[in-house]
């Protein structure tokens, strides 16, 4: 993207550049009447939407009203002030990944994956690991030079550490979907602490967590090497593995 100096301002786009139009919906715990609609407008105004049009108001059950509001938002966004984790590695095809592993690691790269804690949602880890994959991309099991062990759901942290040891894991992938009471954060911290305790720094596998509700910039706080968020594909994970374990690092094969 462009240089990081100056400002690059954008506003939401309805049907004309700069019109700032947005659409929001919400529920207020009040019965539907004129006052409720006024309350919706007031809320929209406080959200920076002015003028706000209540285009739909519908009573729901006892004492609740659902609103759809359209209007112009007066906030501005400076694209140059946006901070995201940009991909800092090259995207490789499955064939390229296999070639790099074969030529430079000269053994199979071992990956151990699991859902830890009480999380039973294997959707994420399976999308990355199963041959089936996601979004037309095959999962890591499909990569000839990767040895994948998928421990499945509700794996305890000690089980995971043990499996990583047995499989001589180069990387450990953990998926966390359930986020009630920040379970995903607690579980991840517990996991990374257990690996730090069980293995010396040089021998520790690469720790990767993924899930739809992670903040990708929290790696240090959670004690992991990489966080992948919503929409990550197996190809990105494989490319990252090659980057972090081989091309960026001198491997002791």
């Amino acid at each position, binding site marked *: 993207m462009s240089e990081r100096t100056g400002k690059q301002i954008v506003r939401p786009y309805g049907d004309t550049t700069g019109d700032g139009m947005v659409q929001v*919906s*919400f*529920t207020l715990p009040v019965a539907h009447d004129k006052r409720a609609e006024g309350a919706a407008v007031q809320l929209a105004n406080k959200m920076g939407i002015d003028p706000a049009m209540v285009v739909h108001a*519908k009573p*729901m*059950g*006892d004492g*609740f009203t*659902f609103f759809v509001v359209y209007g112009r938002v007066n906030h501005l966004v400076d694209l140059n002030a946006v901070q995201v984790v940009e991909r800092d590695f090259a995207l490789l095809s499955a064939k390229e990944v296999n070639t790099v592993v074969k030529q430079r690691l000269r053994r199979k790269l071992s990956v151990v994956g699991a859902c830890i*804690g*009480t*999380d*039973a949602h*294997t*959707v994420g880890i*399976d999308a990355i690991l*199963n041959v*089936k994959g996601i979004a037309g991309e095959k999962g890591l099991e499909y990569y000839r030079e990767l040895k994948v062990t998928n421990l*499945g*759901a*509700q794996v305890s942290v000690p089980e995971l550490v043990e499996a990583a040891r047995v499989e001589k894991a180069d990387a450990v992938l953990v998926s966390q979907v*359930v986020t*009630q*009471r920040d*379970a995903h954060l607690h579980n991840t911290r517990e996991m990374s602490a257990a690996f730090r305790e069980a293995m010396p720094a040089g021998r520790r596998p690469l720790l990767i967590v993924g899930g*739809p509700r992670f903040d990708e910039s929290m790696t240090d706080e959670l004690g992991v090497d990489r966080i992948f968020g*919503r929409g990550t594909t197996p190809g990105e994970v494989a490319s990252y593995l090659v980057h972090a374990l081989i091309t960026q690092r001198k491997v002791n094969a």
Partner: protein
Amino acid sequence: MTGKLDLDPVLVARARELARRAGQPVVDLARSHTTVSVERAVLRLAGVTGADPDGIPWVNRLVDAVAADVGLGHGVAVPVFDALAREGGTDVTLLAQKAAAGSVRFDLPTGRAATAARSAARRAVGAGIRRIDRRRAERDRLIKRHGDPKQRPWIYLIVATGDIYEDIPQAQAAARAGADVIAVIRSTGQSLLDYVPEGATREGFAGTYATQENFRLMRAALDESSREVGRYVRLTNYASGLCMPEMATLAGLERLDMMLNDSMYGILFRDINPVRTFVDQRFSRQVHARAGIIINTGEDNYLTTADAVDEAHTVTVSQLLNEFFAHEAGLADWQLGLGHAFEINPEVPESFRLELAHALLARELFPDAPLKWMPPTKHMTGDVFRGNLLDGFFNLAGALTGQGILLVGMMTEAVVTPWLSDRDIALQNVRYVLGAAGGLHEDFVPAPDGFIRRRANQVLGEALDLLERIGEQTLLTAIAEGTFGIMKRPADRGKGLSGVAAHEADYCNPATDILEAAA
């Protein structure tokens, strides 16, 4: 409504026969083993209630104490009632408390003591089963008074706040908004607890703990709602995981109306030991049969991990197996809420016609079962607008193929646990489709030799092939090798295996005796 797909009756009969052949060895296994949870269910029927100060139920303490003294393979009923007679008491819960304190020793009585213990156990357990019978009669009376839902499919809605006192007003609001069945989702991970928590609970993860008291509170609230809305509002919970038999028993005692109860879900998705699951499942289904509870099976889950087109036949196979196991345990067709789901990738060409073919196949194979139709989850992307459209097509497929129970899809699936407004919008979607096209199944007859008929027959053919392959090995091997839902689950692995025991020659379980005598 039969004959829309021109299924070959010889093939259908063959499929059932193969399912029986695959399932029978598992039934034999179930008949010759018991588990800690089966034994705890027997004690619950015999009247043991409550938990110790740490929240561990007295049934757990008592079963553990008996197993420590004489093992599990004889059943706990005789040793417990023998000890009760020796202690000179009548209160089994008190005996459990003494046993937990280590002041009771359990033995295997012989002669007259054994006969006396057997008949005392049978009396106590029989009283528990009569309580279940009374709850069933009560349900029949209430249905007669308030009536069933006016339309099919019944509208099934989930609540899951984690707090039973928050669930109750949500469930009542849902009933007012048109829900016919309320399911209270359990706290994540409850299926892996080897005990049933006690009391009313206000803290859960992504769901509310299933406890006897929570069951009672919610049923009472929905009885109130039934009076208010003029139709009997049904209540659903889960007989799955490590405590299947106890969940079924508590559901029977508290007049729950439906229970999730799949024959293989725990094995495949929770990594519960296969033998443990099949033993627990058989007992739980016998209780459900007696209690007049409709079971919901979990075939929808396969399609969340496997491809809904390539693996469509595994759903059919699982439905046939679930049917076999259910009939064997004494469940009638009206109690079989066999599951399937609308999970085909919407990007696949003709995806809706494929869905119709699969849904109609299930309808025609199981004409007397109230099929449970599950909404899209896998291809819900967070685009709530597209999700609402997809749910509309799901609802339409349900109406067109005469599904019995429709789980209301949420366009915020995969985004948040449903908000009040999500539920309202989703119910509006269902009401629109059922109102606009509720009777369209009368006119919907797929063209002879058309796409839908060909697809349905192809899936049936693939199901037969798979059943033939399972028949050549065994069901347990097939599960071990990852035939269903990709996961591989060997019979000597998985959670809960330590709680399984083979029957000794003198194994006694008065509950099974009574339940099987009636069947």
